[in-house]
């Protein structure tokens, strides 16, 4: 596939040198992108990318998030979760990180782990300095669903209701939220079978390996965040 155009180009252009030398030094022979050749890959790749986006926006495909280091905000009008655990933790920034400020590179966070969650009207924004990257989903009748959601938050607000809550466990003994929902020994924690939070608002430092299904996905830049 690669060799045949190479050959034709070199044989077909044999009478060329005389012409090119007269038109100056810019017309030296060199490697170039052939547009039609590039299109052979560009067209199917674009189609595939469009397909992926449409499937994601319909909620048929799940996407993974792993963000860390910059604070971002998540809001939702309603969150329903099965298997909930929460405990305190300390996030360590990379040494000499510009986000360090006066914190000494450490951020005290609340780690919330939910085994499976559904969210209504999810909105997620990252402040990029001047502009916000805004991701919204689940505005319609279909809800956003997430599995193995682990968030490290510095702020969490909302109206919460728990079922079968256990408060004051050692964080290393938690068992209701799956593998991501266990903390270090000797740390205060709580867990519950189900959780319902209305008007959720979180400021997060990290979301790890959560698979999101995002029906009605929209990704855009905006002046203000969620």
């Amino acid at each position, binding site marked *: 596939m690669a060799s045949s155009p190479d050959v034709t180009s070199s044989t077909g252009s044999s009478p060329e040198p005389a012409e090119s030398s007269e038109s100056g030094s810019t017309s030296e022979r060199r490697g170039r992108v052939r547009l039609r050749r590039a299109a052979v890959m560009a067209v199917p790749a674009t189609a595939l990318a469009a397909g992926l986006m449409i499937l994601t926006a319909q909620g048929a495909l799940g996407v993974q998030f792993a963000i860390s280091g910059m604070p971002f905000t998540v809001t939702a009008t309603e969150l329903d979760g099965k298997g909930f655990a929460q405990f305190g933790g300390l996030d360590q920034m990379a040494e000499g990180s510009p986000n360090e400020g006066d914190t000494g590179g450490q951020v005290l966070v609340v780690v919330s782990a939910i085994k499976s969650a559904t969210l209504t009207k999810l909105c997620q924004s990252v402040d990029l300095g001047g502009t916000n990257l805004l991701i919204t989903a689940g505005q319609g009748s279909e809800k956003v669903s997430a599995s193995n959601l682990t968030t490290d938050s510095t702020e969490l607000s909302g109206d919460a209701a728990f079922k079968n809550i256990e408060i004051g466990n050692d964080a290393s003994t938690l068992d209701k939220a799956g593998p991501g929902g266990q903390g270090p020994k000797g740390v205060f924690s709580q867990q519950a079978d189900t959780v319902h939070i209305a008007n959720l608002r979180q400021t997060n430092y990290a979301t790890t390996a959560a698979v999101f299904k995002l029906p009605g996905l929209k*990704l855009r830049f905006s002046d203000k965040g969620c």
Partner: protein
Amino acid sequence: MPAFQRWRAARPFWGGLLLALGGAEILVTEKASLKVVMHIGMQGLAGYLLPALMLICGLLILFNPTQRLFYSISGVLLSLGTWLTSNLGGFFVGLLLGVVGSCLAFGWLPDQEPRRRRSWWRRSRTPATPHSA
């Protein structure tokens, strides 16, 4: 011609560079500590593996341009895969860079004659267009 320009002319420079930059951009958007990733397992690891491979494919296109077809096909598939595994392809930016870079690398051919405007007299002088590809 300066040495760098000659080096650049002998390989799909922009293609490889864009693909490598795309991989790097995606990695920057998800710089979580490796401890957390290992804890979560394969599912989380894929999010780092794909952009890392994109970066490597981009560099290999630059330093081993003869194998550009294999690297660019792998590169475009990896770039598309990051939409699912890595923050929607680094919030779309890294995915776009990766796909454009791979296409440029795929469409690149060595030793081409200079581009020139198609004018009627030149066309009439070279009877058949030399490139049918």
